[in-house]
């Protein structure tokens, strides 16, 4: 609940996926939820280095995210702090991406979490999957406890 986890199986080796995640020219090709253009990419891919990526979505709105790299382990792991620039979302969060070789491809596990305290987050994840899923579903569908 406090974290979003997504998994993708990709028919490309981890090194290629890792470079696609960290090279400005590559980032400009896929970043963003739709075919809107990436306007600027600045990345300094090393621990403590920063990134800033600005893009426009097809509805014409512009967005910018920035943060710092927390872990850079080619080609298996990338972690960075994350914030939306401006007033979109002043809070900081953490993005973690793990790449695992499967056959000739890669399993990518992506996590975006609100909590910065690692122990809190771990304990949270351990306890979350299960009982609260139901609660979350009910709240999401608005079946009960309507406002």
């Amino acid at each position, binding site marked *: *609940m*406090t974290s979003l986890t997504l998994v993708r199986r990709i028919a*490309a080796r981890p090194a290629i996926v890792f470079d*696609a995640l960290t090279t400005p020219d590559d980032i400009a*090709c896929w970043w963003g939820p739709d075919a809107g253009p990436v306007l600027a990419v600045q990345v300094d891919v090393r621990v403590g280095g920063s990134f800033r990526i600005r893009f426009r979505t097809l509805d014409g709105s512009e967005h910018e995210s920035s943060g710092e790299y927390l872990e850079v382990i080619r080609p298996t792991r990338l972690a960075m702090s994350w914030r939306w620039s401006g007033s979109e979302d002043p809070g900081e969060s953490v993005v973690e991406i793990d790449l695992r070789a499967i056959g000739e491809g890669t399993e990518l596990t992506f996590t975006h979490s609100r909590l910065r305290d690692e122990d*809190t987050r771990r*304990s949270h994840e351990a306890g979350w999957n299960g009982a*609260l899923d139901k609660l979350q579903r009910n709240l999401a569908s608005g079946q009960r406890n309507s*406002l």
Partner: protein
Amino acid sequence: MVNNDAELDRTFAALGDPTRRAILVRLEREGGATVSELARPFAIRLPAVMKHLGVLDDAGLITRSKAGRVVTVRLAPKPMRTALEWLRRYERFWSSSLDRLASYAERKETETRKAAK
């Protein structure tokens, strides 16, 4: 916006504890419960339960109403909806971006293999 952010932090912090999540799940299932009913399944003392309820109350996740000596606790869903909305926004962004990343990396892989031949 800043207020929203502090609210989100409180919601997520309150949800970051297994006992508090268990309390919320129970309230969701049963609609409401008294403090002593809530304390019963947990191997902790009443003051500890009261402390958890205080955190949930501060985060706006529950409401407490008193009738005589009985305090009834109910779930207040709004902060959780806000938290879900926060997650959904990232989900929209990342789910599409990762699909695009996957297609892009797969094209690169194909190109790399062709070049190696």
